[in-house]
């Protein structure tokens, strides 16, 4: 144990870093700016702060984790892990659902940060342990390259002046030049371009100024090219607004597959459409949040559970929508022909049983090397949701008929 005096001496003798005048900048900062530019990103839902980067240098401020950390939750129950903000809310696009659109009829004030200001706020919140890092997006202002240059300057200040090593998620604005994307990829953990809709035609319904192929897909392709050369620690992601232009879940599914296969995306995020007052779409009704939830389940089946394309297609109805039921259960009821015996089913077969996830499937495979599974309690102790799984399992000879399966799952 070291004495209190000694530690204080060690801490205060090291060279003064640059946030000594923090108090002053806080007094001069306009709190409504933080409010408005913060609100500009509240519908951006990528809050994951997990990254593969490892911080092993000395003399840096900050750290990252594999699991990511939520530092708070809003009254929506959503995780707050980053300082999510726009650089400016001045935008020359006319996306109909957006409050920063040129189409917006309400009155609004235009705010912008300076790179220095934004870096300081980020560092202060970081040192207070309120955030894992910075999520930086922006309106495109008059020119997307000019604003991106300023956003990158913010990252450079964080990097060079404050030795910041925390998490950075950087939004690539539609139409930004390759050179800037390259610069951003050298500093950020994660890059993303919002595709917003599943196809060109849908996008043209929502915006007349964005071109799906050249402004969005081409930028995703640039990021992919950069990723092949040098790994991006947290990969590339994207986000769709669900239900603003009448697209079906199946349209979204098809686009999601393309994004994973062709663009090597880490994740696709779905955000259910909410009408904002005095935008052109204020009269359109909001999408239920369960639609978003079912899309995520579909996404999980593909990405984590490795279900095949044709298996997942079973879950869609004739109009191409998912209904408000667990898609995995729905697929199991329609596709599993016989009961699964936990003693000899493969890992993949186990994963297809409702109530068994990757963790419990893994445990079952390991456990049965030395033991035999003959009663439900064993499965319960291995982490299986027995109530959901029983209708699909053959335990000690007993199994459900097809009809009993349907009846057994009615209540779920």
């Amino acid at each position, binding site marked *: 144990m070291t004495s209190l005096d000694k530690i204080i001496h060690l*801490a205060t003798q090291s060279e003064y870093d640059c946030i000594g005048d923090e108090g002053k900048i806080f007094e001069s900062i306009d709190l409504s700016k933080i409010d408005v530019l*913060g609100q500009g990103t509240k519908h951006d839902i990528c809050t994951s702060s997990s990254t593969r980067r490892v911080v092993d240098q000395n003399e840096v401020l900050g750290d990252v984790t594999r699991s990511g950390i939520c530092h*708070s939750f809003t009254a929506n*129950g959503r995780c707050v892990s980053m300082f999510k903000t726009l650089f400016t809310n001045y935008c020359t696009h006319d996306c109909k659902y957006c409050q920063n659109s040129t189409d917006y009829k309400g009155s609004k004030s235009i705010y912008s940060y300076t790179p220095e200001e934004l870096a300081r706020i980020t560092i*202060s919140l970081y040192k207070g342990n309120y955030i894992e890092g910075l999520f930086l997006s922006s309106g495109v202002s008059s020119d997307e390259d000019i604003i991106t240059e300023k956003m990158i300057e913010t990252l450079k200040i964080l990097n060079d002046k404050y030795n910041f090593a925390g998490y950075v998620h950087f939004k690539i604005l539609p139409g930004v030049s390759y050179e800037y994307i390259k610069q951003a990829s050298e500093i950020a953990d994660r890059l993303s371009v919002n595709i917003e809709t599943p196809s060109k035609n849908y996008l043209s319904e929502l915006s007349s100024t964005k071109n799906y192929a050249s402004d969005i897909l081409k930028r995703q392709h640039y990021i992919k090219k950069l990723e092949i050369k040098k790994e991006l620690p947290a990969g590339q992601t994207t986000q769709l607004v669900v239900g603003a232009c009448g697209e079906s879940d199946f349209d979204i599914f098809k686009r999601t597959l393309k994004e994973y296969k062709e663009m090597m995306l880490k994740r696709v995020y779905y955000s259910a459409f909410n009408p904002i007052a005095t935008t052109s779409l204020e009269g359109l009704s909001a999408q239920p949040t369960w639609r978003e939830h079912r899309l995520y389940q579909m996404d999980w089946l593909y990405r984590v559970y490795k279900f095949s394309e044709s298996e997942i297609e079973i879950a869609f109805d004739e109009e191409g929508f998912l209904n408000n039921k667990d898609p995995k259960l729905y697929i199991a009821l329609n596709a599993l022909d016989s009961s699964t015996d936990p003693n000899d089913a493969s890992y993949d077969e186990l994963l297809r049983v409702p109530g068994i996830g990757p963790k419990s499937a893994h445990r079952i495979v390991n456990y049965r090397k030395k033991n035999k599974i003959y009663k439900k309690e064993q499965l319960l102790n291995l982490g299986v949701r027995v109530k959901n799984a029983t209708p699909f399992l053959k335990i000690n000879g007993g199994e459900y008929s097809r009809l009993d399966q349907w009846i057994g799952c009615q209540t779920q």
Partner: protein
Amino acid sequence: MNRNVPLILLEISTKISWHELNTSTDSEILKIRRKVGEVRSEIHRMMGFVRFNLINDKILFGYMKPKHRIGRLVTDIFARRFQKNMIILGNEHRVWISYYCANSYKRYEDSRSLNEIIEKVKLLIDLDNEVDIEKIWKVYYDSQYIKERENHKLFYKNMPKKHLKSTGNSIELKLNTKTLDDYIHSD
């Protein structure tokens, strides 16, 4: 580990392999597995919910009252995260201090209260100052709320009051005690 863990479990835990711990269905080992989970999740919760105030830009202090004996560990994690900063965490009965620089930790522990230690530190560096980051945080935190998507149940599940008390984050605690309805209708 918590004091309340029976000796027999502690004994078993030293003998079993990681593999056994993760796949066994034995009821005793299951208890250990749950305990390990509890401790790990408390560490993770502390890393997320503890908040710091700054005395000067090198001395960070915050309130923390963990259920398990993880005080020193968590303080070390923060010391590593904020290299060359002095990290002071503690509650009414215990204070942990850690400082990390050039691959080594300097540690100090005290059984006095956090407030007493803070007063002493302020006296030693001759500075009575606290930087108010909370003001900015409150504005940002409120800006992220989407009225149309309010979900009380999920909020309480993710941020139960008992956990907020052990890390002393006042903004969310206020939201939590005022009842969510008061909060929403006030704006």
